[in-house]
Structures are given as C-alpha cells and as structure tokens.
C-alpha cells in the first residue's frame, strides 16, 4: 500500500503541493471567481424581479387607463346621445312650426280660391241668365214673330233654370 509505505518520503511533498495548489484554487477560484458568478446570478435575479415589478406596474397602469378611457368614452357617448336627442327634438319642433305656418297659408289660399270660384260661378250664372233671356227673346221673335218684353223673357228663363 503505497499510501503507507511511501508515507515517510512523500508526506512533505504531498502536503506542500496540496496546500499550494488548493490555496491557489481557494484564492483564485473560490475568492476570485465564485463571488463574481454569484453576483451575476444575484444581479439577474434582481433584474428579473425588477422587470416583473415593472411589468406588474405597467399592467395596473394600463388597466387604470383603460378604465378611465372607458369612462370617458361612455361619457362622450352619453353626451353625443343627448346632443342627438336635442337636435332631433329641435328639428321636429321646427318642422311642426313650419308645417303649421304652411298649413295656415294653404287654408287661406284655399278659402280665397273657393270664394273666387263661388263668385265666378255666381257671375257665370247671371251671365247665362242674361244670355238665355236675350236668346229666348230672339228665338221668340224669329219663330213666333212676337216681341216680348225683356222682363218676361228673363222671368221665364229664371223659372226654367230654377226648375231645371
């Protein structure tokens, strides 16, 4: 067993080189490199934590903004609805008023026209009477050779016209 049989001649060299090399490992790797590696991990963890927090905050903010936007939008919609209603009512009123005015005008015109028609009809009737009595006088004179008084002719015509 070389571990025992060589012990006396090799222990010093074993101890020396182990301490030298393990010392090197400890100071260069353990003290030099390991803290940096762990730093990197810590930094990354912090970064991730920060990013998560920032993302969470951004999401909350976005939610709030969306909420505000929705509220604003609803308000705007309600406002525009009200405006539309107002305009509709106003327009309806205006139309009604105009219609009324126009109706009044029409009524007047119709009444006028009817009065005119009635007058015209009256005048025409009178004229027809005159023409008819003249015609009756003429016809009687030509046919019977009699001369009748205009009053008589007109009375006869009136009677005929009244009785149809």
């Amino acid at each position, binding site marked *: *067993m*070389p*571990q025992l049989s*060589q*012990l006396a*001649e*090799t*222990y*010093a*060299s*074993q*101890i*020396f*080189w*182990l*301490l030298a*090399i*393990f010392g*090197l*490992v*400890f100071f*260069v*790797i*353990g*003290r030099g*490199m*390991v*803290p*940096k*590696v*762990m*730093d*990197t*991990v810590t*930094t*990354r963890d912090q*970064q991730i934590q920060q990013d998560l927090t920032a993302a969470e905050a951004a999401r909350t903010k976005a939610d709030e903004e969306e909420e505000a936007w929705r509220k604003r939008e609803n308000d705007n919609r309600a406002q525009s609805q009200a405006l539309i209603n107002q305009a509709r009512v106003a327009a309806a009123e205006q139309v009604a008023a105009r219609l009324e005015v126009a109706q009044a005008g029409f009524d007047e015109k119709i009444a006028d026209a009817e009065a005119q028609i009635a007058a015209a009809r009256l005048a025409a009737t009178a004229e027809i009477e005159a023409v008819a009595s003249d015609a009756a006088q003429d016809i009687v004179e030509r046919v019977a050779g009699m001369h009748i008084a205009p009053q008589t002719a007109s009375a006869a015509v009136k009677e005929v016209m009244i009785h149809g």
Partner: protein
Amino acid sequence: MAAEAGKVDPMHQFTIEPLFGSNNWEIAGFNIAFTNSALWMAIAAAALWLFMIGGMKRQLVPNRWQMAVETFTGFIDDTLQANIGKEGRKYVPYIFSLFMFILFANLMGLLPLPLAIVGVHPFTFTSHFTVTGILALLTFLIVLVVGFWKHGLHFFSLFVPHGTPMLMIPLIFVVELFSFLVRPFSLALRLFVAMMAGHVLLEILASFIVDSANAGAGWGLVIGIPIMVLMLAISALEILVAGIQAYVFALLSTLYINDAENLH
C-alpha cells in the same frame, strides 16, 4: 502496471513518483518533489479553472456553460444557506473550492484507458490519506477558529447537549469531545477509502480480463466478457461515487462549520 512479470499489482496505481527530475527539491530540509500526485492536483485545479472561465461571461441570459457553473455555485450556496443560514454565505468560497477540487480530482482519476496506452496514467490523489487528511484538517481548523472566535470558551458547551443530567455531564463531555476529535479522521478516511476501494476493484477486475485472456481464447471470452460488462457498470457506479464523496465531504464540512457558527 505490472509490478512483476505476469502479475498485476492493484496497489501500484497509487504509487507516487517524482517527475521531471525533481526528486531532490527541498524546502527547509523537507522534500517537495513535484510528483505525479502534484501534477494531477495541478491538472484538476487547471480543469476547474477552465470550467469556471466559462461561467465568467456574466451574461444576463446565460449560455449552457455559464448555466452549469452557476448551477454549481448556486448548489453550494443553497447547501450552506440550508444548513448554516445567512451566516453560511461567507463560507461559499471555501466549501465551493473544496467540493469542486475534490469532485474534479475524483472524476479525473477515473479517466480511462486511451491515456494509459500512451503511458499517461491518471492519478487519483484523493486516494491518499495524506491529501484527504490535510483537507479534513483544514475544515477542522476552520471549525476550531470560528468556534473559539465567535463563542470563546462557551464553545465547549458544544460537548454538553441540552438537558444532560448533572451527573452525566463529565461522561457525556468526554464522549462528545471524542466524537468531535474523531471528525477529521472520519472525514479524511471516508473519502480516501471510497476512492481507493473503487480503483482497486476496477484494477482487480481488469486483471481478471488480462489473466483469463492469457489462459486461452475460450477462457478469455467466457470470463472476460462478463467481467467487462461488470466493469462498465462499476465504472458508472464509480462516477456516481466520485460525485457523492465530494458532496459528502463538502456537506459534512458544512455541518461541522454549522456547529461552530451556531453551537446547538
């Protein structure tokens, strides 16, 4: 590897040989020859250094290598936090160095045949109790220094568990003190024995294959092939053991340091 002609000596693999004519290097009368053992310590350290280089890119989004390095540091960090608590963080450099150095030593000691063909034999320096003993003593010293530094003489209360009857205190104290003093030995022997046993077993099985083949082609097939399959399985097991023993060493060191930090 054959010590004598036709004989395979399974212990020969643990022989320490000075390299590069450094037999007579001395400091203060102590021989410090640069041996194959020292060479493989240097190789393990260099390999560990190369491994760590890959973790130094410090990218926000790590690549696989950086991820692997961070997994190891995170693993040691978690172990220390779980066993010692917040105070444990300051021992990460030591425990990490210990764990990774032993792990790399164990694994590189298992490097297989292709290297042996060109005459390079992996040397498992963790199969020497001189080495594991020094590492265990380092941990033991840290425990002592931290314990007395933090708690002064109160550190001795470690040897008297809570609720010990007055009458029993002297006896318990002696027993606990003994179990405390045995720690570095058990720590050192566990790693040394586990590594040596595995390597001896592989060597003996390998010698079976060589011997059976020498006894004839028939014996070589009948004995050699099953043994080869067995060796494959045991090699896999040894890789597992290499990791487990490194972890056990680091974990026990952590637990001992915890005693010094927090008493109990």
